[in-house]
C-alpha cells in the first residue's frame, strides 16, 4: 500500500470516529450559528488529531505533508458532510497568502494556529459591484494616510464575512495607471472601525455571502502584503495556491446513485421510472460524464504522485459537473412531481434535490462563471485569441464607464 493510501486509511478512521458527533446526520436541523459552533469544535479536534494544515510547513504549524495528502484527506472528508464550509476559503486562500507575504512571523504563527483550530476565520475580499469576473476593475480605494493608509469603498459576495475575524483585500492605490497595475493587497482586521458587514440573502434562502463597506478604515503599512502596485500579482498567486483541490464529479450535488434510487421508487404512466427511456438516457449520460471527470481526477493524482504537473483537463471539473447537476436536479424534481414541492432551505445540497437545484446557479457563478471558465480553456489551453478588450493599455481613470 502506498504511503498516501495508508494516510487515507488513517484519515478515514479519524473521520468515522468523528462522524456521529459532527457528520451530516448530526447536523440536521442546526441553525447556522449552531453549525458554526459545531464546526469550530470539529476543526479543533481535527487539528489535535494531526489533520490541520496537512500540506503546510511545520515552521508555521502545518504537518509538512504533500498536496496529495491534503487532497486525499479532503476527498474522504467530503463523504461525511462535516461542518467545514465556514473554514474552506479561510484556510484555502487568505491564510496561505498571509504565510507567504506577511513579514511578522510571530503574528503569522498565532493566526495560523487559530485559523486551523477554527477559532478565527478569514475572508477574501476581491469582488465588487463593478467587477466580479473582471477583478482588476475594482474601485475600493486606498490613499496614503500618515505612515499608513486610509481605505474607502465596497466589496461584495464575501463568503462568511459576518463571522470573520480577519480578511485579505485588493484595493486600488493608483487610478492613473493601467487597471491591473494600480492595485495593492492588504490584510485587515474585520473588527476595525469603519468596517460594516451586511449579509445578502441568496435565492436559496441562506445568507453566507455579504456586502462589506469601508468608511475611512485605517490600515497600517505593515498590513500590506506584497509591493505597492503589486496587488494583482498577489491576487493571481491567491488563485493559484489551491489549483488542485478535491473535486466532486457530482458538482457538489447529490450522487447519481440517489437519482437511480429515486427512479427505482417512482412510476411514470404506471411503469417504473427506471424503465422510461428518457430517464435511462439521463442516467447513462450523467454516469459517463461523471466517470470521465473521476478518471481525470485519478490521473491528475497519479501525475502529482509521479512528480508531474497534472494536465489542463482538470479545469473542466466545475464547469461540467455543476451545470449538469443543475439539470439532473430539475429532472429529479420532475420525477417527484407534487412530492417535490416541499422545500427545506436547510436541507443539504448533497442529499436534497430541491436544495441542489435552487443553489446550483450559485455554483455556476462563484469561483469563475461557466463563461469565464470557457474563455480560460479557449485562451489558455487552446491558444485562441483574447476577447476584444477596449480597456487594454488605458489608465484606469480614463476607461469609459
Amino acid at each position, binding site marked *: 500500500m502506498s504511503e498516501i493510501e495508508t494516510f487515507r486509511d488513517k484519515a478515514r478512521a479519524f473521520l468515522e470516529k468523528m462522524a456521529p458527533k459532527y457528520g451530516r446526520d448530526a447536523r440536521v436541523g442546526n441553525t447556522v450559528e449552531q453549525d458554526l459552533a459545531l464546526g469550530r469544535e470539529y476543526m479543533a479536534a481535527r487539528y489535535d488529531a494531526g489533520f490541520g494544515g496537512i500540506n503546510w510547513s511545520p515552521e508555521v504549524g502545518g504537518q509538512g505533508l504533500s498536496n496529495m495528502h491534503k487532497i486525499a484527506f479532503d476527498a474522504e472528508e467530503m463523504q461525511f458532510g462535516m461542518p467545514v464550509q465556514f473554514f474552506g476559503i479561510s484556510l484555502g486562500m487568505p491564510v496561505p497568502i498571509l504565510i507567504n507575504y506577511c513579514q511578522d512571523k510571530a503574528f503569522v504563527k498565532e493566526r495560523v494556529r487559530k485559523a486551523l483550530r477554527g477559532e478565527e476565520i478569514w475572508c477574501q475580499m476581491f469582488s465588487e459591484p463593478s467587477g466580479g469576473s473582471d477583478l482588476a476593475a475594482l474601485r475600493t480605494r486606498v490613499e496614503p494616510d500618515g505612515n499608513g493608509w486610509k481605505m474607502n469603498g465596497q466589496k461584495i459576495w464575501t463568503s462568511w464575512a459576518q463571522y470573520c475575524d480577519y480578511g485579505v483585500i485588493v484595493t486600488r492605490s493608483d487610478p492613473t495607471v493601467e487597471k491591473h497595475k494600480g492595485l495593492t493587497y492588504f490584510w485587515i482586521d474585520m473588527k476595525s472601525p469603519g468596517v460594516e458587514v451586511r449579509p445578502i440573502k441568496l435565492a436559496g434562502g441562506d445568507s453566507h455571502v455579504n456586502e462589506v463597506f469601508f468608511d475611512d478604515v485605517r490600515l497600517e503599512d505593515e498590513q500590506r502584503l506584497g509591493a505597492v502596485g503589486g496587488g494583482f500579482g498577489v491576487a493571481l498567486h491567491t488563485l493559484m495556491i489551491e489549483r488542485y483541490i478535491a473535486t466532486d464529479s457530482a458538482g457538489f450535488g447529490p450522487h447519481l446513485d440517489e437519482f437511480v434510487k429515486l427512479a427505482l421508487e417512482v412510476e411514470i404512466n404506471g411503469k417504473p421510472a427506471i424503465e422510461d427511456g428518457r430517464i435511462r438516457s439521463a442516467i447513462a449520460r450523467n454516469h*459517463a*460524464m461523471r*466517470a470521465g471527470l473521476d478518471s481525470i481526477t*485519478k490521473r491528475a493524482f497519479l501525475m502529482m504522485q509521479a512528480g508531474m504537473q497534472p494536465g489542463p*483537463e482538470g479545469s473542466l471539473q466545475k464547469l*461540467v459537473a455543476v451545470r449538469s447537476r443543475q439539470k439532473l436536479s430539475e429532472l429529479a424534481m420532475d420525477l417527484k412531481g407534487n412530492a417535490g414541492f416541499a422545500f427545506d432551505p436547510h436541507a443539504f445540497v448533497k442529499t436534497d434535490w430541491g436544495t441542489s437545484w435552487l443553489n446550483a446557479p450559485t455554483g455556476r457563478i462563484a469561483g469563475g462563471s461557466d463563461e469565464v471558465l470557457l474563455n480560460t480553456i479557449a485562451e489558455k489551453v487552446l491558444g485562441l485569441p483574447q476577447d476584444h478588450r477596449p480597456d487594454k493599455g488605458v489608465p484606469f481613470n480614463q476607461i469609459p464607464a
Partner: protein
Amino acid sequence: MSILYDEGQQAIATESRRVLDARMAKDRLLALLEQVGLADQPFWDTAVEQGWTALAIPEAFGGLGLGLVELGLVAQAAGAATSGAPFLTSGYGLSSALIGSGNSALQQAWLPRLASGEVTAAIAFAEGNAILPAQPAVALTGGKLNGTKPAVVGASSADVALVWASAGGQPVLTLAELAAVERRAVSSYDNTRLHADLTFKDTPAQVLAEGAAARALALDVLARMAVVTAHEQVGGAEALLHIARDYAITRKAFGQPIGAFQSIKHRIAEMYGLVEIARANCIHAAASEDQPGFLIAAADARISATEAYDTNARDCMQIHGGIGVTWELGLHLHMRRARSLAAEQGNLLFWEDLLVNQLTGEAA
C-alpha cells in the same frame, strides 16, 4: 482503474501517429468514398507492416502479447487520420472471442494468421438495429448456417466471420469461413467500412459458445471492440478540435480572427471538454480489461466518445462556414466516420440501456 501511459505505450502512440500522418492522403480517402467495396489498402498494409494486427494477440500465437491499452492508442491514431480499414477492430474482436472460448484447436488455426494479417475478420452480430438480437434470424442447424446478416462491416472482403446465430431457440456464437458465402456489397455513406450483406446457405460453422455462455462471450467481445472504437472516436474528435481551433485562429471576419468571438471560442472549448472526458473514460476502460466493472467502463467510454465525435463533427463544420461543407476540404470524411463508428459495436441506445442495467443490477 486509471493509469498513466508508460514509455512503451507513449512510443506506440507517437509512432502510430507519425506513420499515419506520413502515409494517409485525404484525396485517396475522398476518392474511395465513391467506390463500393474497396478498402484503403495502404492503411491495411501499414497496419500489418507495423505489427498492429499482432498487438493484442498472445505471444504463444505469434502476437505481441499486449492489450487493449496499446491497441486503443493505435486506434486513436487511426481515428485521427480517418483511416480506412475496419479490420483492426474486427480482428481483435475475433481473436478475443477465440481466446475467450478456450477452444485451442481454433486458436491454433486462426490466431497466428490474424496476428500476421494474413486473414481478415468480420463480426456478424447485428440484425436490423439490434446489435445482439435475442432471437437471431441466422440459424445454425447440423453445423451449418443459414440466413442473412445485413450490412456487416468489413464483410465485402473479410476471410472469416464471427457470427451471432440461433440454434434450437438458444443463441450460439460461431465461426464461419466466408469463401463460399454470398456477399452483396452495400453502397454506404462511408464505403471504406466495406459493408456487405452476408447470406449464409448451408455454410459450415464451428461453435465457440452456446446459450448463456454465448451471450456473455459475445457481450465481452462487443465491449472490447467498443473500447477500441471509442479510442478511434476520440482520435477523430480530437483531430476535429484541432482543425476547428486552427481555422478559428487564422480565419478573419469583421476585422478579427473568428476565434476571438465567444460564440466560436466557447464552442471550441466545449469540444475540448468532450474530448477530454471521453479520453479519460477510454483510458479507464482499456486499463480495466478483465476486471470487474469492465462493462460499465466500456459503456462510459463508448457513450462519451460517441457524443464527442458526433458533436465535434457537427460543430467543426459549423465553425468553418461554407468552406466546411465542400467535398474538397474533406471534413465530411470525419462526419461520415463519426456516424459509421457510432453505429458499429452497438449504438448509443444499446450502450445507454446496458449501462443502466448494469447500474441497477439487471442482467444485460
